[in-house]
């Protein structure tokens, strides 16, 4: 696999506490994204998925630092790239789409100008050429009457249209990696579906890889090839979407799937995962999921299971994979 576009190795993020050990938010996370691949990270609030994404674009909140590990984009070490070098990368190489289309557009600038800004800055286009490109990008995202809508201010557009504008903005410089932080959470379900399809199609057209962060398993199922499930700052399971959905190897993933409605089996009872996610400031030596896990044994509470491949291209961090697979088979 020489065609790796993003490689995250043993990334650990945390908040330093003076002399005491740092509070670890993201713990030893590794994954790679191949050119053209669509990779999803799933996890609940506080699982560290958004922090992982933010570390890639250099937007960690004040106080949160990369404690160890590396972030490589091609040959570039992203953690060491700042200032002008970072700005040259953002747009033509890496772009990001936000969760909230309502607030991610500047309220006093016409949306066409906002889309055109990136291509003027990064591709050196003239004002007129950049505007034309903006209008054609808007047309590609399926915005009706793009020439007129480009002259609109954000408040004049609906949520779905604004999210399309965000997509047009992110893709106008033809980035090679597109990061999405829950881009459809603020949209209703029908629009959500359209926007996901559009993202997929446009990424394919531009040749961009996709890193998709969400709490919604169904969204990952619709959009991604590969997926990582995060819990309490660690990747607990990683593999192809098809395999993970068919045969989850971690009790947390299995629990998530069991708790989500399935339209193929509408009569199946939904099973909630008991308990609450752990407080990251008070980590134990054991598996973070052990207190909530139906399969937990004594050793689960004292040692943390490593992320291991049990079949090719499918890894899970669980001592009791065998018992889980027996129980679900």
């Amino acid at each position, binding site marked *: 696999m020489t065609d790796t576009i993003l490689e995250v190795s043993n990334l650990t993020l945390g908040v330093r506490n003076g002399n005491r050990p740092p509070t670890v938010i993201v713990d030893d996370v590794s994954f790679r994204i191949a050119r053209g691949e669509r990779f999803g990270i799933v996890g609940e609030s506080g699982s560290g998925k958004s922090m992982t994404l933010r570390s890639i*674009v250099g*937007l960690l909140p004040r106080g949160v630092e990369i404690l160890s590990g590396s972030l490589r984009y091609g040959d570039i070490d992203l953690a060491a790239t700042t200032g*002008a070098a*970072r*700005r*040259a*990368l*953002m*747009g*033509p190489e890496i*772009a*990001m789409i*936000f969760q*909230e289309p309502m*607030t*991610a*557009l*500047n*309220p*006093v*600038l016409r949306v066409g100008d906002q889309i055109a*800004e*990136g291509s003027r*800055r*990064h591709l050196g286009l003239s004002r007129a050429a950049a505007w034309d490109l903006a209008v054609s990008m808007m047309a590609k995202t399926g915005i009706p009457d793009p020439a007129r809508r480009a002259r609109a*201010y954000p*408040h004049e557009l609906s949520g779905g249209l604004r999210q399309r504008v*965000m997509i047009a*903005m992110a893709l106008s410089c033809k980035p090679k990696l597109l990061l999405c932080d829950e881009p459809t959470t603020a949209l209703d379900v029908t629009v959500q579906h359209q926007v996901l399809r559009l993202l997929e199609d446009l990424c394919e057209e531009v040749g961009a890889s996709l890193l998709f962060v969400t709490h919604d398993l169904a969204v990952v199922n619709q959009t991604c090839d590969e997926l990582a499930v995060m819990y309490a700052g660690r990747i607990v399971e990683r593999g192809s979407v098809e395999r993970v959905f068919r045969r989850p190897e971690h009790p947390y993933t299995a629990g998530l799937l069991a708790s989500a409605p399935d339209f193929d089996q509408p009569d199946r009872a939904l099973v909630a995962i008991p308990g609450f996610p752990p407080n990251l400031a008070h980590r134990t030596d054991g598996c973070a999921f052990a207190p909530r896990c139906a399969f937990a044994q004594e050793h689960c509470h004292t040692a943390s299971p490593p992320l291991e491949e049990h079949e090719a291209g499918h890894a899970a961090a669980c001592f009791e994979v065998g018992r889980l697979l027996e129980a679900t088979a």
Partner: protein
Amino acid sequence: MSAPTAVLDGFQTRRRAARSRVLKPWYRNGSLMAGIGVIGFLVLVAILAPVIAPYDPIKQDLQNALASPGAAHWLGTDKYGRDVLSRLIWGARVDLRIGFLAVIIPFVVGSVLGGLAGYFGGWFDTIVMRIVDIFFAFPFYVMVIVLVFVLGSGEASIYLAIAAVSWVSYAKIVRGEVLVAKKQDWVTAAKLGGMSDARILTRHIGPNVLSQAIIYGTSDVVMDIMAIVTLGYLGLGIAPPTPEWGSMILDGQEFITTHWMQATIPGLVVVLVSLGMSWLGDGLSDLLNPERRK
């Protein structure tokens, strides 16, 4: 077959009418037009002063001092026999010019310093804001009067004194607005688009925060005119015999019991300016907000 179309037409017309009531074009904005009307009229009067003033504003006619309003002198004459109306008209030149010009320097200096302090924070923010606090501790008029007293009267020292004192208001307003704006997602989005700090500050944050400073500026013009009038009243402003509203009020007050109009008329003109500027400010705040304009 034409009936449904007619219904549809009626519906669309109604919709358009409803829309235009909510989102008025700028020329239907009442307070903006009132402000433009009043201030425009006064500015026109100031520009046309040599043409429309019936008399020379500094020519004395002691024979005819303290004349009552009449056909020859519409607003009467002052204690030196100078025509009050002509002095009011020529005074508009001085007071309006200083009022508007004195806003520009503090507006620019305060907005730039406040914007940089709010955006970058750190030691620069600390230094700028402590200086602002020091200036804020003194009342505006007291500071201006003291500074003009120290610098000596005249137009240049009025500009300097007002600039030195009033930039802090702009710095405070713009800094506060920038602090709010820089946390917005669209600033993060611009950063993620690889935009430089200079560009984010001028093109993205600037238009969002400057409207507040501009609206404050309209009320600041009134503050400045009041300062000039106060300085004139205290004899620190524009040297006589140059016509100026403040010194006219000062000259008129000694005859307040017998010729009340002498002090009242220039006072009313000052009130009219403040009224016009606040209408203008109200109107501008609507106009500068894209969510409220058509």
